[in-house]
């Protein structure tokens, strides 16, 4: 990142001239701030992508900025291609929040995203909560990460028949259509209970004896060991059913500890599934 802001001034000034179509010699503080942030965002993109590694002669703010703009354009194209790829078989499992965010919201982002003058703006709020923390990202980076998360979730959920997923969601909460929760995590929690009970998913209900088994597991094992075991089983499942899903295992494992802790408390309360 540039330490010396003076180097960025000519770049920002040129961008401001383009913004006003060379018809105004001044802009408001807010607009100038926005344009400076756009320059910094693009330079950051160039540095992140590795294209920022250049010779000393080339390492000017203008060069890095232009490289960054190309990176942002390429990223936007990749995100749109990925979105279209997922959309073909996208299933929102009747969840309104997922539908609104993915089907209604994201096209609006691509419609209004301003690569040149405001690439740092995420525009939409991405209400559907994904399992990965993407709060540190902005602009197209955040959108790309979000779409990648949805791609992985769709990959995981498609392992199961649609009816099964809907049934799990319905049993979790009868108002599952209105939930603003991650549906992938709900299904994964359900699967985790069956894994710990040692029962196949085809068994519709678990009885008191199964609850007892799970409770004993939590009483006799350390949380780390249980998480490790669950992680191994989930990894094996993903490896078996979705061998080519890049990063899916890692994505799911990120939520295993939270699921295990909730299960521990749920079993104690006689409600391992956390049914509402």
């Amino acid at each position: 990142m540039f330490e010396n802001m003076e180097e960025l001034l000519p770049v920002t000034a040129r961008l401001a001239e383009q913004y006003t179509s060379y018809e105004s010699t001044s802009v408001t503080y807010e607009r100038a701030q926005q344009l400076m942030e756009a320059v910094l965002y693009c330079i950051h993109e160039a540095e992140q992508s590795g294209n920022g590694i250049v010779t000393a002669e080339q390492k000017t703010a203008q060069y890095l900025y232009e490289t960054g703009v190309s990176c942002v354009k390429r990223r936007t194209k990749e995100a749109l291609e990925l979105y279209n790829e997922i959309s073909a078989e996208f299933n929102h499992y009747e969840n309104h929040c997922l539908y609104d965010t993915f089907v209604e919201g994201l096209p609006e982002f691509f419609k209004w995203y301003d690569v040149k003058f405001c690439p740092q703006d995420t525009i939409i709020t991405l209400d559907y909560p994904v399992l990965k923390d993407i709060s540190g990202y902005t602009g197209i980076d955040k959108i790309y990460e979000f779409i990648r998360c949805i791609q992985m979730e769709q990959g995981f959920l498609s392992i199961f028949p649609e009816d099964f997923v809907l049934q799990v969601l319905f049993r979790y909460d009868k108002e599952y259509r209105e939930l603003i929760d991650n549906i992938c995590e709900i299904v994964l929690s359900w699967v985790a209970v069956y894994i710990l009970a040692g029962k196949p998913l085809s068994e519709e209900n678990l009885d008191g004896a199964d609850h007892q088994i799970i409770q004993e597991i939590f009483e006799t094992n350390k949380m780390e060991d249980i998480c490790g075991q669950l992680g191994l089983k989930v990894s094996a499942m993903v490896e078996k059913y979705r061998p080519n899903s890049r990063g899916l295992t890692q994505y799911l494992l990120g939520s295993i500890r939270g699921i295990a802790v909730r299960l521990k408390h749920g079993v104690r309360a006689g409600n391992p599934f956390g049914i509402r």
Partner: protein
Amino acid sequence: MNQDWIVLLQQQSQLGKVMETNQKTAPYGLFLSEQDAELLIEEHHHALQEQKRVEFGGGITPKIIYEFCDSDFIDQNNYVDTIIKLQEIFYLYKNEMQDEITDDELLHFMKEQFEKVCFGDLEYLEGTCLNIFAQAIRAGYRGYKSSEGRGEYFQFDEVLRWDYELYQETLRELCWR
């Protein structure tokens, strides 16, 4: 983000460009000494800060000078003061018009009213002509884009400038008395 960079951007010197305007204004009997030019630039920075705007490139002062130097209402005595006030008014109305209007369109509009409606009265230009025009622009009026800001004010003027009947009546009285 630290806003020091905004201060840096505003510190770009425009002294040379302002002094250059003397070449064009000389035929109109207008001249800026180096002290005058420095004062104009200082007041220009104040106006920008006051209106929370950032300037880049050539700056507006030379443009204002070139636009107004042939005015019937500016002479060497009021030259510097008038340009200082015009700078303030210009930035105030760039904001009031929400940046919808270009520099040239605003300058054309200001010059035309300054000459034909205000007769050199800067307060009337600021408080009435530009105020009314800014309201129209905020309400969505965009007709000035095709006219480049010229010949616009008569549509919005609230004062009857030329009463044809009164003219006829006075003429009759004068001629047939």
